[in-house]
């Protein structure tokens, strides 16, 4: 580990309080990120609907969801995408370092009234670029044993 000589802290010079951003030199292709489980229930979907302004009824109104042919209320794909990437931002140490993020929505996350649903999220470093200190992480997200995201790749710039 390297240490930085301490300098007097002044609020106007941000560099005196470095972010705890992961160092590029400690990352290798194949590294696994700590896996996590995201629990989602109806209350969470209502919260996300309000926060994101995506108020589509299929995400909170069970009779409506069933009437349009869904098995039950389903989570917003963007909720799954947004919660899955917290695995990467926590590992990187600064959410602002994620410069690219893309996914395919392969299956809906069905969210029953009583039990809700668990989304299991894991990630692996797929590639690293020493020139730009960019690392590409491939995320895997599953619910009820099925992959709910495909080609889920996040690119972050490390220190």
């Amino acid at each position, binding site marked *: 580990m390297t240490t930085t000589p301490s300098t007097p802290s002044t*609020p106007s010079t*941000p560099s005196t*309080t470095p*972010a705890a951003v992961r160092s590029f030199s400690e990352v290798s292709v194949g590294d696994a990120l700590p896996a996590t489980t995201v629990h989602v229930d109806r209350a969470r979907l209502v919260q*996300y609907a309000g*926060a*994101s302004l995506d108020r589509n009824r299929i995400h909170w109104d069970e009779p409506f969801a069933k009437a349009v042919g869904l098995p039950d209320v389903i989570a917003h794909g963007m909720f799954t995408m*947004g919660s899955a990437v917290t695995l990467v931002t926590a590992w990187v140490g600064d*959410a602002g370092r994620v410069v690219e993020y893309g996914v395919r*929505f392969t299956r809906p996350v069905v969210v029953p009234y009583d039990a809700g649903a668990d989304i299991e999220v894991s990630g692996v470093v797929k590639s690293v670029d020493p020139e730009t200190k960019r690392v590409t992480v491939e995320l895997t997200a599953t619910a009820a044993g099925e992959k709910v995201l495909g080609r889920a790749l996040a690119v972050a710039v490390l220190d």
Partner: protein
Amino acid sequence: MPVNSDFQGRVYPPTETYRVSAAKIREFAEAVGSADPVHVDAEVARARGYADVIAPPTFAVLIAQQCDGQLIRDPEAGIDFSRVVHGEQRFVHHRPLTAGDAVVGTLHVDTVREAGGHAMVTTRTELATEAGEAVCTATSTIVIRGGE
């Protein structure tokens, strides 16, 4: 009614300004479960070199989906919203969206295609500050399920 392929290549005029607030960033970060204090603590954000609290990586969808509405609500586009499924989403951040940003979105309809009885429409929203600084490119593919 089929999706109107004449819309491919269409570019809409820039939207009204969206003002990114610290309150909305906090609300969004809590909803997706992002615990990074950079979303809620301006001191932390400034210590990391940002002007104010910054948004989580998928926050831009909130603005991009409002831009997409211009296409989806256009009767001539022939998109039946009740049959729409989100197929793909991608963000390229030129810099983080930051509280205080005043951004406008320019909607591009990149592709309109039919496949297996479904229609797929890929849109791209270029988010930039009012001053013209590029902030985020948000690309979305929606699938409009065909009738049975």
